[in-house]
């Protein structure tokens, strides 16, 4: 009898790599199925695949795999935020100040509407304040990804990408501010110190990354995709640094994006098309997001969740529509732009988790209201976004093949 000990023992040990590859295929397949057969956004397919494979489904996505996926997730998040930064134009805001006004009004209205709705329902002040601050924000991931998938171009697309940047930053600062406020005991310095640290620190790191990119661009003169390698590296460094410094990755990468667009030669258009690599990252991002979605919810909070969703949606849509005309667009497009601001996603989870870590007593109630709302808005958000872009005639509708 020959020695057969070189054969592996059965059952085979769990391989994170094999499962990860399978996850990507499943996500991609679901995305294409949704897009081609149902005319629904690809990312909805990725999310549902993630849910099916995550802890609420077949529980394939776990342990080692999460740590591995986490790296990709951060790169994907970083790249999308960075690209938003590249598109973000201060010059445009100077030429059309009504856009800034729209941003302030829609975030302000969302804050007020959610705060009053929740306190009216008898929710305690602290969680209501934080929930209202989170309600200001819109997912900075869904609008750009869906718009790119549909090759959308026009004012609804362009402004949505601008407004999600502004309101995400505002929401982030508002949450930081509210948390300081709740713990300040009335001491003014305490209120401002942490938000100020986050803002200035993040801007400085973003500027630093921008200078390094400019220097590397000058030194290495990257060509043919070389700049993408450098940008991915710098983005990962940025995310790591921000994590250690307890700053905001969002603000840092936005500033980094703005810097490279305006000051780093050779990088200006570097990530406009990250191509296949970018698409791969998007698949990972949303499959993993789907797997992470906390699907459990408590029926006794249903009214509060509904109030959060409806108040926020109404406030944003009405505010954006109200300023549509002076900001230079039709009422119809204004309304559709409002709808583009409805989605929420993984970035808002981070805000809740952060609150829960530092303030467990607020975290429980807050999570009960906001988590189900985010899940809902992450699932239907892409569909609403796609619908808004199609109705605005900004999505590209190709010539149908002649029968």
């Amino acid at each position: 009898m020959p020695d057969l000990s070189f054969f592996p023992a059965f059952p085979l040990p769990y391989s994170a790599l094999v499962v990860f590859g399978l996850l990507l295929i499943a996500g991609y397949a679901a995305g294409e199925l949704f897009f081609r057969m149902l005319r629904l956004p690809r990312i909805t397919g990725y999310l549902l695949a993630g849910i099916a494979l995550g802890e609420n489904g077949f529980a394939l996505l776990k342990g080692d795999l999460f740590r591995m996926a986490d790296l990709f997730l951060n790169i994907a998040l970083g790249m999308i935020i960075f690209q938003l930064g590249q598109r973000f134009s201060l010059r445009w805001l100077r030429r059309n100040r009504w856009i800034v006004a729209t941003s302030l009004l829609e975030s302000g209205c969302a804050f007020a509407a959610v705060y009053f709705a929740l306190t009216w329902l008898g929710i305690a002040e602290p969680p209501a304040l934080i929930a209202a601050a989170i309600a200001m924000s819109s997912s900075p991931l869904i609008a750009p990804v869906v718009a790119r998938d549909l090759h959308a171009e026009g004012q609804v697309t362009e402004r949505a990408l601008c407004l999600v940047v502004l309101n995400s930053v505002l929401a982030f600062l508002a949450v930081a501010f509210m948390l300081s406020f709740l713990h300040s005991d009335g001491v003014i310095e305490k209120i401002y110190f942490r938000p100020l640290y986050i803002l200035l620190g993040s801007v400085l790191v973003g500027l630093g990354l921008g200078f390094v990119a400019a220097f590397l661009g000058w030194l290495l003169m990257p060509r043919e995709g070389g700049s993408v390698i450098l940008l991915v590296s710098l983005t990962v460094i940025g995310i790591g640094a921000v994590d250690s410094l307890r700053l905001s990755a969002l603000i840092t990468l936005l500033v980094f994006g703005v810097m490279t667009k305006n000051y780093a030669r050779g990088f200006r258009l570097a990530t406009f098309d990250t191509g296949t690599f970018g698409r791969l990252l998007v698949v990972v991002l949303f499959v993993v997001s789907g797997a992470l979605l906390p699907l459990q919810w408590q029926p006794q909070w249903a009214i509060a969740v509904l109030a959060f969703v409806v108040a926020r949606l109404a406030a944003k849509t009405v505010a954006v529509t109200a300023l549509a005309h002076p900001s230079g667009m039709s009422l119809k497009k204004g309304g559709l732009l409002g709808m583009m601001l409805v989605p929420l996603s993984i970035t808002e989870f981070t805000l809740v988790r952060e609150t829960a870590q530092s303030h467990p007593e607020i975290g429980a109630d807050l999570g009960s209201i906001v988590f189900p709302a985010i899940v809902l808005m992450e699932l239907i958000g892409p569909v609403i976004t796609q619908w808004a872009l199609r109705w605005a005639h900004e999505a590209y509708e190709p010539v149908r093949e002649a029968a």
Partner: protein
Amino acid sequence: MNERRIAPALDFRHSAKLSIGIELELQILSAHDFNLVRGAPDLLELMRRVRHPGELKPEMTEGMIELNSSIHESYRALLGELRTTRDLLAKQAGRLNLAVSGGGTHAFHQWAEQRIFDAPRFRFLSDLYGYLAKQFTVFGQHIHIGCPSGDEAVHLVHGLARYMPHFIALSASSPFSQGVDTAFQSARLNAVSAFPLGGHMPDVPDWEHFNRYFAQMYEYGIVDSMKDFYWDMRPKPEYGTVEIRVCDTPLRVERAAQLAAYAQTLAFHLLHIAKEPPPQDVYLLYNYNRFQACRFGLGGNFIDARTQEHRVLKDDILATLTMLHEATAETGNEEPMWLVREAVQTGQSDADWLRARYRESGFLPDVMERQSELWMGQT
């Protein structure tokens, strides 16, 4: 065999002699990456809110709009109107994060990525012309000159044929196409040349013969209306004008107005001063002279049909400007003709300007940015 089609008679509408008007096809760019962007619907929607002279129209693709001037007697009035509309367009585009630009081509837009929309007209053209329909994303200036009658229009078209290379060289602003330097001064016309009904008007002596030619083409089922002829210069009976269509959209409206004045002065000369009929061989040399002007611009070789003489196109334009002194005085076009002379003498064409910008930065989006700033008067 189908029933015989009966051609409608073409009525040449009377219009004020030597009045001028222009159409400019303009590029709509994203102020983000300076590629063509489907911004026309948003921009036109915003322009409808402000009072402006002339007319703005949507075009085949949403990355393009057409600016139509009103009808003018003088260069000065035309220029004033163009500047007003230009300033309004630039301001409104800025509010939408868009840029508007002149130039005959977009430097790096890829025609393969040109998206054809599912509208009936697009589908028809796309089905008929295949890739030509996509490649036709080019931007030209059309100049209209008022004519009182069809006979005069036909006469004027023949007379202007000799000067066609002048208009190409003076407006050439499309050296780049599909991301490469084409070596042409006007690469745009190469896209136009591929269409079957392009080229020049047939050698008909008068309006009656022209009508007969049109009726024949109509009865063969080749054309349905005058719109189907893509000639470099053609009578436009429904406007009562002669239309010159060889010009690239210049980088600035000032040059566009100068070209209109040049056409007006030439037309005055051809209708009032020049006695002899147009030379016989002008159409024999037509394609050669046209190619030279597209490829080399002001430096191209030009063969004069009357004298069989070869000369540099630049010299022929300077000689023409001198010959036109009487017509210039009669039409009051001293200033624009002097500006044209200055541009020709310094040898600086729009195409050269664009190449110089490319040498500075090596990056075509930068070139498009500078090009749009120049058109919008922001430099």
